[in-house]
């Protein structure tokens, strides 16, 4: 038996050396390891006929042979895999093919389109508003009283001219939407916003998503459910939303919301600073004063806080992109280095 095994081994080594391509190799595999007619397989079948005393030694010889055949075949596959040795015809298929390579969309645009898609699926209309805003839309209509310290947190760029500024948030789009539509409203707006601030995590230009839902009997619970659905879709995993009381003049009750950490699912890791949660943005129930001010400007009670309510929320597009792609410096988004941009093909 041992001798037979040795002979087959020699024969196999010769056959394998002569096999010059994947097809020839798979033929060799079939010849030796094939279930029905494989030479090694046949040896194993014959083992039954070997006297019990010699069976252990014979079995181990056959097993050695089988291991040798398998590993030699695997080595050969690995050696030739991917190298696509030139064929006699002179075509080197390892040379790069001819590609008209399309450009890439900026990662901010990619997140923007994802966010748009999610809201469109949920039946939201996409809203928009000017980037050079008036004080009235950016602050007044959003219930920031004139000369109120709450304005300090907004680091506003002022534009020379009549009460003009660069919008500090997408929330003025809420007001444009309320003025230009009728309830019920489901609106999402994505756009550029500006803050007088610049460091690793703050850029003087960045992008926000704004959501606004107004209708009869809209509650805080709808806000939470919407945030959970939205954040889950953005990060492609189920998330838990945690609301914390906060203060934004245009919502009451106001909240900041966190999601269960998308990296550790809540057990604590470096990105979530061990808390299990990641800060996302601000939210709350539309302040009745916002509705009342819109009514006053419209000269009609289009939004009666007695009969309808609404919620609003916001978050940063860059923040989503940074979390999704592990980017740690917000300024990279605005350098437009192709070595950065090309990392996000789409």
């Amino acid at each position: 038996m041992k001798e037979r095994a040795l002979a087959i081994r020699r024969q196999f080594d010769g056959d394998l050396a002569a096999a010059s391509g994947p097809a020839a190799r798979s033929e060799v595999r079939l010849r030796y390891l094939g279930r029905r007619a494989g030479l090694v397989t046949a040896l194993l079948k014959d083992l039954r006929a070997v006297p019990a005393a010699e069976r252990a030694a014979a079995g181990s010889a056959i097993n050695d042979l089988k291991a040798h055949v398998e590993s030699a075949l695997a080595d050969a596959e690995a050696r030739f895999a991917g190298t696509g040795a030139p064929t006699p015809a002179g075509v080197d298929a390892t040379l790069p093919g001819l590609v008209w390579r399309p450009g890439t969309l900026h990662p901010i645009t990619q997140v923007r389109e994802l966010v748009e898609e999610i809201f469109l699926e949920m039946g939201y209309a996409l809203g928009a508003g000017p980037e050079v805003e008036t004080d009235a839309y950016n602050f007044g209509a959003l219930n920031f009283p004139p000369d109120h310290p709450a304005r300090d947190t907004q680091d506003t760029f002022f534009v020379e001219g009549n009460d003009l500024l660069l919008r500090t948030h997408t929330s003025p789009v809420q007001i444009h939407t309320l003025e230009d539509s009728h309830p019920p409203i489901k609106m999402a707006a994505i756009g550029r916003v500006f803050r007088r601030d610049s460091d690793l995590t703050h850029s003087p230009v960045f992008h926000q998503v704004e959501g606004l839902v107004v209708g009869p009997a809209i509650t805080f619970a709808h806000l939470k459910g919407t945030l959970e659905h939205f954040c889950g879709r953005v990060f492609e995993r189920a998330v838990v939303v945690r609301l914390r009381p906060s203060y934004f003049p245009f919502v009451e009750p106001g909240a900041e919301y966190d999601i269960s950490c998308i990296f550790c699912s809540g057990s604590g890791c470096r990105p979530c600073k061990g808390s299990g949660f990641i800060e996302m943005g601000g939210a709350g129930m539309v302040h009745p004063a916002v509705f009342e001010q819109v009514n006053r400007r419209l000269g009609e009670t289009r939004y009666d806080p007695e009969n309808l309510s609404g919620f609003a929320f916001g978050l940063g597009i860059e923040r989503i992109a940074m979390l999704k792609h592990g980017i740690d410096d917000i300024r990279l988004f605005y350098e437009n280095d192709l070595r950065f941009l090309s990392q996000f093909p789409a």
Partner: protein
Amino acid sequence: MKFGHAWLSSYVTIHEEPARVGARLTDAGVTLDGIEGAGGTAVYDFDIFANRPDCMNHLGLAREYAALVGETLRRPDSAVDAATGSTGPPPGIVIEAADLCRRYSARVVSGIRVGPSPAWLRERLESIGQRPINNVVDATNFVLWEMGHPLHAFDLDHLEGGRIVVRRAAAGETLLTLDGIDRKLLSTMLVIADARRPVALAGIMGGRASEIGPATRRVLLESAWFDPVSVRRTSRALGLHTDASHRFERGADPEGTLAALDRAAKIIAEIASGRVESGPIDLRPSPFPKTVIPFRPSRVAALLGVAVDVIVMREALTRREFQIAPAGSDLWQVTVPSFRRDVSRDVDLIEEIARHRGYGDIPSLLPLLPDDGGGRGAGERLGHAAREALRAAGLSEAINYSMVDRDDCELFGGKAPLALANPLQAKAAFLRTSLLPGLLRNLAHNLNRGLPACHLFEIGLVFHRLREAPDERLRAAFVLAGRGQPFHWSFPRREVDLYDARGALDLLAERIDLSPLDLSSDRIGFLELARGLTIGKEGRAIGCLGEVARLLRERYGIDRPVFCAEIDLAAAGSGRAPGQFRPLPRFPGIRRDLALVVARQVTFASIEAVVRKTAALPIAEVLVFDRYFGPGVPEGKVSLAIQIAFQHPERTLSAEEVQAVQDAIVAALERELGATLRAPAAG
């Protein structure tokens, strides 16, 4: 804002670890930023929102904590052991600006000895990062951090006439404030003056002239209520932000002046061996009415989407010193405590209740609203179409800041740019009037880093001042430099040229329904002479195409040719209308190639026009498949190989009739454009 654990424990019994205290308050809307130290020496750093000045002191924060855990609040002792007599005439206090000072309470403490504070007081202040100064100043500072009301101590003997006048500053008046700066005052600023001159900036900072010093014997303590907007405007105008102004501009407690005044007077009497004189003096030209809110408990569940026990509602409010008077079925009259100036209507009370019980168990629901399917607006569709076209043309998207240098506006013909009043840097003080400067900077950035090719586009708003109003326009722009596509070993290496830019623009034009392009040669300041084209639509210029002027690109640090285009998307089109189906040709067409030699200035457009005009058979398309000049072609001429596709909708064309038409075309080209055939091409 810093708070000591031990200090808080003076007003409420705390059984929990500092970390738990911090988490509990965070869940109730007072956000913990961090904790230093442990146990009794722990110091909290809380981020307190602008609407909660009542929490910006230890007693106030203790009240919030006590409400959350159900402990009782222990108020500090404010009982003053006031003397019956006084050592001199009581100070005369007049409020002239009653609109900006709605309460002024004062006391005199006499016979004091100014010196260092006792250890307990110094330690309290130092624990939260405050620097002890002397016993009188420290006492007022302590009361600010204890009870939240900012106080000021004047050396009464340095107040001329022993008088206090609360008034607006007179034009030209100045005040040397405690920080040693001589400040010019405006007539809108509220000051505390003596008989002659301002001695303090009301609610912000005192003056040097009446500062408490070693020789001070009689102190006038001020505890007032100043108008938040006035304090804020003055503080901002002077660039002077203090612990006092921080609280006044957020709204101090108008009913809290006396307790704070007495507390400070009591402490000063104790630690500076002084005597509290009879008083207090308390002027209230216009007291605040109590805020009473009609409140329907049923609204809580209606807004929060979760049922809340009435007992919990009562607890949330009464523990925070709101008073509840039932006024009918589902109606309470809730009186708001004077220190809660942020609470004015029912939703504020709902938030109090929601904060008290925590936001944790709010269920997650999705709103069920009828909707009209929403969708994208015209602007979004246009931007989307343009983005996809340029990406397909091999360009990568850039996103640049909107703020640029003035030169960036002027060099690219931007008239009337919008300027920022408070730019972050002088080089970014205007809003962009063109997308090209940003893209050129990106180009320089990439080429300087050794990238062999840079093909970038941007879609975004540019800004102009139009009849004094801001005008925002959505534009698309791109720049191309370096290696061209395709980059492949089977192709000769080539650099981008004007036709790469033209091709990208063609693709864009097709996607936004602007095809065929209306291009005309033009002199455009920032483009190379004779390599600049204007894109027109209905007689209006809506963009440009060309090679960036060499001097200009060198300014941006670019050492090789750059081809670019910019187009006003909104003016260009409204996105593609749904195409109408045309039946497929049922009969085979015939293609004929012609190799023409024409003068260099004869354009392809003029050749195509002659071909189409002359042909007596329908033409599907006219293509160029080669362009050549050099050896073999006479000087000043160019060889142009074109292909004409004849296609009849109703029949198969015969070779003879096509040949006849072809001959007519050749004759017409020769007659009208001086074109000759280079060599007969195979049909």
